[in-house]
């Protein structure tokens, strides 16, 4: 069962690598926020998987909970940025669907 969980963990890491492509290349900053949010969810699960591999899940659940919590706060904070400053791209180029601003 342990090797199954390790394989699951490595598969999750691979998926994170693919998501990281969206985070790093994503055309706008909002795409990046979305990518970070998805990575955060995967990480929460990976934390508990690591706990299962160590056979000490009770020690890891608190970290996962705190983690999900702060992921939420970071996402909210990053998205609130756009409520005040409504320019998507920092210099105004590089985005196809850009609005009429700046």
């Amino acid at each position: 069962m342990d090797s199954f969980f390790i394989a699951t963990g490595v598969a999750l890491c691979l998926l994170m690598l693919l998501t990281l492509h969206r985070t790093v290349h994503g055309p706008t900053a909002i795409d990046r926020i979305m990518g970070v949010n998805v990575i955060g969810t995967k990480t929460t699960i990976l934390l508990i998987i690591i706990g299962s591999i160590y056979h000490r899940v009770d020690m890891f659940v608190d970290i996962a909970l705190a983690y999900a919590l702060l992921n939420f706060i970071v996402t909210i904070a990053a998205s609130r940025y756009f409520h005040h400053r409504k320019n998507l791209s920092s210099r105004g180029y590089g985005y196809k669907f850009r609005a009429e601003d700046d």
Partner: protein
Amino acid sequence: MIWQLDLSILTLIVICAFATIMVKDLLSAAIIFGAYSFLMCLLWTEMGAVDVAFTEASVGAGVSTVLFIAAVYQTTRKVGVRKSGRLLSKAVALVATLLTGLVLLIAEADFPDFANPFTPASLHLSPYYIMQTLHDTNVPNIVTSVLADYRGFDTMFETAVIFTAGLAVIAILRRFKKEDRCDLPEPYVISEAHPDTIIRFIARQLVPFIQLFALYVVAHGHHSPGGGFQGGVIFGASFILLAISYDFKMVLGIMSERWNILLGNIGVLIYAGIGFLCLLLGANFLDYSVLSKVLPATDKIMARSHGMLGIEIGVAIAVLAIVISIYFNIVSRGKYDKGL
């Protein structure tokens, strides 16, 4: 440690670090840095450092990313176009970096293998902590017992460093007057945010549970990962969530600046006060075993455990106040009028 996960997470971390440095937009850099901290937390967990992972999850991934976003919010997102004359200095920096890397790589050849249980670092002092912590202090979490008891003096000054950092931020940024001579006008128009009912409702539901969870983390730090630093930061993060989702003023109504600074002082004073209490009772500074004289129905071992709990509470209060203070000062440029 689980080497399969180790290799994959480290590779992801390097990609994140490169992207953070290369990206041409400060907000994106801050966000990718958040992902970097998330992966870092995963790495610590995988190497078995659960307390470090907890701290990284709350401090590194949560609060520092929010601080970066706040700072970018108050300044600008633009990374300037570089001038042509900087090519030489870039080359010099590259050479210096490569030289440093080379020196470290040469030194690395002499390092003991990763995950070898018989390295010098793990043979000399730490076996004592691992063997004796239950016997000495009745605290199963070795990290907590070393942090709060064996190396309590160290931690006290770490708390003092945090406190000093909070004071420094206040000294640099806080502006009490309405108009300030050296203050430039707003960089560009900040549009009024409309209140968002969904976020407000969820935040209102979650905040009590977050605060309860923070208290649990502080109190249960003896038996599971957690403790004063982590609990304090999570408690502070709940106020940050309120300030983000509601109004800045509303949080100031709950926790005014005066109270906040007072709490920071109280936290550090609790820590030092327990130390002085030990001194008064005729033992060394921060030697909690003597507290069994004043605490009812405790022997010396349990007194050490309770003493640790006391200082964890002090640390939590101090860190809570300082995190809130740093965030508020940065997000409102020291004016305490409006934030994110």
